[in-house]
């Protein structure tokens, strides 16, 4: 290897190149180069796993997670389950530079972003809406529920926890936790 270095998960070539050029030609500091690189994937919706319009949750909404960590100051800025704001890595930079916190989450992270000048906009697209509708039409399979009724392996919710009897009689679904294959994580579905 040799410095400077940019390493990125997957085959996200444009993002890697943009970060590297920001660092070398643009002489950005590393955190700004990091935001530049990650933002390319947020715009290009890399593999459907970054940015708006991908990985809809059970209500069809896309929410975003992002983090930036400075290995010299050990300072961190992060957003989790950010809603209705597209540029998650950039918002994380404001958490890093404009707060003394590490992480802001959910709708209140959205409020913070709006205060920092970001725009509220839907993160749903036709593609993510279609993916969600197909999932609903398929009895909400696969899903992340267990030990609830009705049976999550057969139908959608809303769900309620299984009865106290089931708990008492140890008839809880445990072992399948070790087997995560039915969630079909992979190139197009992951964190």
């Amino acid at each position, binding site marked *: 290897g040799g*410095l400077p270095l940019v390493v*990125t998960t997957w085959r996200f070539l444009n993002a890697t190149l943009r*970060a590297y050029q920001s660092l070398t030609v643009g002489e950005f500091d590393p955190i700004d180069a990091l935001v530049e690189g990650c933002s390319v994937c947020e715009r290009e919706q890399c593999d459907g796993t970054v940015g708006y319009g991908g990985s809809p949750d059970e209500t069809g909404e896309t929410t975003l997670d992002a983090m930036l960590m400075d290995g010299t100051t050990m300072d961190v800025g992060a957003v989790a389950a950010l809603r209705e704001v597209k540029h998650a890595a950039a918002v994380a930079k404001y958490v890093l530079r404009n707060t003394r916190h590490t992480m802001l989450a959910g709708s209140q992270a959205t409020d913070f972003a709006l205060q920092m000048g970001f725009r509220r906009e839907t993160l749903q697209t036709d593609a993510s809406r279609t993916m969600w509708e197909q999932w609903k039409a398929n009895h909400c399979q696969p899903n992340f529920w267990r030990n609830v009724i009705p049976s999550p392996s057969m139908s959608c919710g809303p769900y309620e926890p299984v009865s106290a009897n089931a708990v008492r009689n140890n008839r809880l679904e445990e072992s399948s936790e070790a087997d995560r294959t039915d969630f079909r994580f992979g190139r197009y579905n992951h964190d």
Partner: protein
Amino acid sequence: TISMIIIDHAGHVVAGTSTNGARHKIPGRVGDSPIPGAGAYADSEVGAAVATGDGDVMMRFLPALLAVEGLRNGLDPNEAAAQQIKRIVKYYPTFTGGIVVATKEGRHGASCNGMAEFPYSVADGTDSEGEVKVYTVKCV
């Protein structure tokens, strides 16, 4: 998920992530990406590690932090990554995930599980044009 490590000429190490998470998650669910030590971890005295995959599982093991500690204890990047993947596989043999690790000198490596192979992209000083190369590792 894009997870990225950047080390500049002066050896300033940073790491970061951005993702829209897992499909069909329960609303409010957060993956490993924004959690320091899980989705990414950087220490300019040693290097950095970043992760991608099934975040519900990976975050329980803080693989990025421990991979950096592996570097600190003398492992090379591939060993540091493989050590964390094997820790997770012991409890979740079918989990899907990958870890990329880089030393502060710019050596890099990766490891993975649940896929045939795992690609990661690199641009560094060895190529004066800054061309991006794709490396792939076979999963454990």
